[in-house]
């Protein structure tokens, strides 16, 4: 069964057949024509576009969310604030705004695993995770995360015991969800920065766990 092939193998094997690469030139040319028209009409400032691209390519990404998670692991008072008012606790880092105006943080435990999806479009917590990856926005993930979350997790290489409750969060409104993953064993003596470096985007969407540090026990 194809679903048993580990995800990492698909990443290596598939022929880069995302549809964004099947039709490269046409949208590129249409985009260029549109931008030059909008600039000529004074509707957009190209420097503003540069600034936005730079912000999401270089500043607003999953490292933000990783810092939030690390703080919650290190500081129990912060974790309490994060789970009771996610937006306010996240704003303590200065992370706020577009697609993160109303944040809810859901906590993974040994008995509960949370998974975030947007079946209707591509809602995703930009201020803490940046822009979503292609798979998150894709039909396979959006269609299956709600009906077969365990199958989806298996495809990501995560098999959960039957007695773990899987809670899926379908982002149907302007509430944006961030998963607080479980802190892996063997990190007790690590600093906040060190544990932050372990936290991945996938773990904060809920399709992975945070792996124990290299050299430690899995």
């Amino acid at each position, binding site marked *: 069964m194809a679903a048993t092939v580990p995800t990492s193998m698909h990443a290596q094997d598939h022929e880069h057949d995302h549809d*964004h690469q099947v039709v490269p030139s046409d949208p590129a040319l249409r985009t260029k024509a549109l931008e030059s028209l909008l600039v000529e009409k004074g509707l957009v*400032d190209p420097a503003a576009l*540069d600034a936005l*691209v730079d912000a999401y390519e270089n500043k607003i990404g999953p490292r933000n969310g990783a810092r939030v998670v690390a703080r919650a692991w290190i500081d129990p008072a912060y974790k309490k604030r994060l789970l009771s008012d996610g937006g306010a606790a996240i704003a303590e880092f200065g992370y706020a705004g577009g697609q993160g105006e*109303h944040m809810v943080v859901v906590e993974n435990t040994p008995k509960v695993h949370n998974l975030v999806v947007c079946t209707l479009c591509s809602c995703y917590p930009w201020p803490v995770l940046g822009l979503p990856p292609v798979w998150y926005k894709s039909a396979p993930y*959006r269609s299956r995360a709600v009906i077969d979350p365990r199958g989806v997790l298996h495809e990501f290489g995560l098999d959960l015991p*039957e007695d773990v409750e899987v809670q899926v969060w379908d*982002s149907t409104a302007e509430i944006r969800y961030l998963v607080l993953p479980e802190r892996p064993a063997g990190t007790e003596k690590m600093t906040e920065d060190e544990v932050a470096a372990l936290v991945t985007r996938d773990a904060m969407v809920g399709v992975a766990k945070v792996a124990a540090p290299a050299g430690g026990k899995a």
Partner: protein
Amino acid sequence: MNGIHDMGGMHGMGLIQHEKNEPVFHEAWEGRVYAMNRALGAFGKWNIDASRHGIELLPPADYLRMSYYEKWLTRNIALLVQHGLVTREEMETSKPAPGSPKATPPLTAAAATAAAANRGGYLRPDSPAKARFKVGQHVRARNINPEGHTRLPRYARGKQGTVVRHHGIFVFPDTNAHFEGEQPQHLYSIRFTARELWGDHASPRDSVHLDMWDSYLAHA
């Protein structure tokens, strides 16, 4: 609308393509489309719900064929023409109409980063809307099939769930998308068991939570 975008629970979409070390934008034009969308939004001619509905209105075959940012590009061109910021002729010639006045971009470079950090919210706490439900109550998602925009997915319609959280009063997308006003309503997180949604083969422990506006719900 009962469109192709409403994908929750569909089969046959294939395997998830997880790409290692994926770039934020795969090609430069994708970043330009993303940024143009944000910059044009600053005109305030449309809202996020109208924008989402613009994607839903793409023909289903195009929706499945187009890449994510190609959908945005196509939608943005449609919104620009629909709201009179550019004309069809200008789109065809890629030149401003002779003698047309030059606008001032509402989003400057200096404001762009601030705009990324602050776009306002959708909470309307001062609205007089009344809450018909409270946490712990059993509810049923209504079976509605509007031709316009809605955020009530087909897979949850008619199903019973439990209110687990009250989020506050939020802009109602079903009207806002069609410029019929924000008409704010109370918004709740509703927990549906996987078995209620998908039948006896689903895990007895698992659940799906959806955020639902007051008028999507009936007392169970």
